[in-house]
């Protein structure tokens, strides 16, 4: 069935001008050969980055002071995860976009109890260490406020100690917390903590690294390494990768917002940047329907460069008059034909 075109759809008609031979299959084969050769050459010359991941064992051995400080912060509730809020716990509100508190509204879906999951539960698996067993008994028998006071005192003392060294903290009322954190350090240095923090999928198989990654990110060891690899947020980190590789260059616009005010110091930066990117992404998809944006190609005549050979033989009117749909100025030859 043939239907009438609306006046502004005149560009939808079948092409009835000059044509040229065009072998699509040949074009695809040539493209496959060219891209194949290019890919193999780039892979052979530049290879790909593969910086080994950080284990909890490596962290505990390389930066024991940071590890102990992080463990103490999980106990006193001052770590990033402990104060995060949804979806991990109710200890914070999360970020918002003006009055939209989406993060809080969504709620807790991936429960994480930093003190219990990162310190107490792993230490319960330790056998043959009466000191740790006694410390656990003392800690669990104490009131919540008492636990909090011990842990906070120890965290404060650690921050005041030279290099944060637990061996050089001033005397204070820390209760069993130093024994607990030292016990956890030993557990991590042995390598046992790595597997204990992975959420068991079926009691044996493991594939969810939420808890160990959150714990790792609560310390400064991981971020210090990232800084050395130029991966921090203020170093356009999300789009970079280790080594001299292009990384996810297509995330440049997303990463860009984190480099400029107010996003580089806003507590709601992630939510605001995501909101902007969602709007811009929607705008990209809907370009043909957005007045003004869809006219940019007519105002910046790069198309004259692209089609220069065709325009040479078929001069087109200037942008100011060529591309205004006929219907906007009144169709000069009446209504569209039906055929």
């Amino acid at each position, binding site marked *: 069935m043939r239907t*009438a*075109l609306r006046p502004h*759809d*005149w*560009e*939808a*008609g*079948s*092409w*009835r*001008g*000059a044509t*040229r*031979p*065009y072998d699509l*299959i040949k074009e*695809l084969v040539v493209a496959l050969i*060219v*891209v194949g050769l*290019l890919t193999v050459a*780039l*892979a052979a010359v*530049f*290879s*790909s980055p*593969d910086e080994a991941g950080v284990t909890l064992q490596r962290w505990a051995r390389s930066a024991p002071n940071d590890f102990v400080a992080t463990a103490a912060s999980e106990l006193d509730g001052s770590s990033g995860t402990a104060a995060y809020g949804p979806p991990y716990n109710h200890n914070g509100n*999360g970020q918002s976009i003006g009055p939209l508190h989406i993060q809080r509204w*969504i*709620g807790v879906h*991936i429960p994480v109890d930093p003190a219990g999951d990162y310190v107490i539960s792993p230490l319960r698996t330790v056998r043959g260490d009466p000191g740790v067993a006694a410390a656990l008994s003392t800690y669990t028998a104490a009131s919540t406020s008492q636990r909090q006071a011990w842990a906070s005192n120890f965290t404060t003392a650690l921050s005041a100690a030279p290099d944060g060294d637990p061996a050089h903290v001033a005397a204070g009322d820390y209760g069993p917390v130093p024994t607990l954190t030292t016990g956890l350090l030993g557990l991590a240095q042995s390598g046992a903590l790595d597997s204990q923090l992975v959420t068991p*999928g079926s009691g044996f198989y493991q*594939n969810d*690294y939420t808890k160990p990654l959150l714990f790792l990110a609560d310390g400064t060891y991981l971020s210090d390494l990232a800084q050395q*690899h130029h991966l921090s947020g203020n170093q356009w*980190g*999300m789009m970079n990768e*280790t080594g001299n*590789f*292009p990384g*996810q*260059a*297509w995330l440049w616009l997303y990463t860009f917002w984190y480099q400029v005010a107010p996003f580089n110091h806003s507590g709601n930066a992630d939510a605001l940047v*995501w*909101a902007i990117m969602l709007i811009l992404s929607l705008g*990209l*998809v*809907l*370009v*043909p329907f957005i007045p003004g944006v869809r006219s940019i190609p007519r105002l910046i005549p790069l*198309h004259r460069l*692209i*089609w220069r050979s*065709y325009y040479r033989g*078929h001069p087109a*009117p200037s942008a100011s008059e*060529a*591309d205004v749909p*006929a219907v906007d100025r009144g*169709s000069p*030859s009446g209504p569209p034909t039906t055929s």
Partner: protein
Amino acid sequence: MSRSSWTGRLRDAAARELPPEKLLPDRQPAYVASWIYVFGVLTLAALAFIIVSGTLLALKGPGWWHGSAVGHFVNSLHLWSVELFFTFMVVHLWGKFFMASWRGRRALTWVTGAVTFLASVGTAFTGYIVQENFASQWIATQAKDGMNSVGIGAFWNVLNFGQMLLWHVTLLPAAVIALTGLHVLMVRVRGVAPPIGIDPATGEARTAMTGSAPTR
């Protein structure tokens, strides 16, 4: 075949919209003579190499490429085909933007292309966080905050390796491949947009004197 059945009508519609001369034409409008037209097919070629190298990685499992020279090379092929894919696709996208290629009932062609680009960004992102190395640890721990801030992270957990691996090797590639297929079909059905200001009915500049509406 009965044309009264929905399957018969579907076949008729498919044959009408995509006859062989549209699906695999041996001629194109004379204006299809710019290097910018090459970037669409280059993107398709790069996607083919992504699929092949990704399939090889999948055949041997996620840990293969860390301890094997051959596996590492296949991973490098995967990485660089992705880099080429995005390079070609971005040039293709900007080219089509400045050609206003959505003109003439071709908006759906643009929309499917733009959605494919966004789906590709998501697919590549999940690839980076299932590498099982330092970069994946860092990217995942950083990205979680953005996901969580808008509520996505509660259901799409970038710290969950198993979930991200399945998205990366099944759901997202399937979406990208399906969207790419739809996009290419739209290009074949609607054809490539004529030069701005040129009337496809005549192949000449559209002026007040040639302003009659063409038929399809």
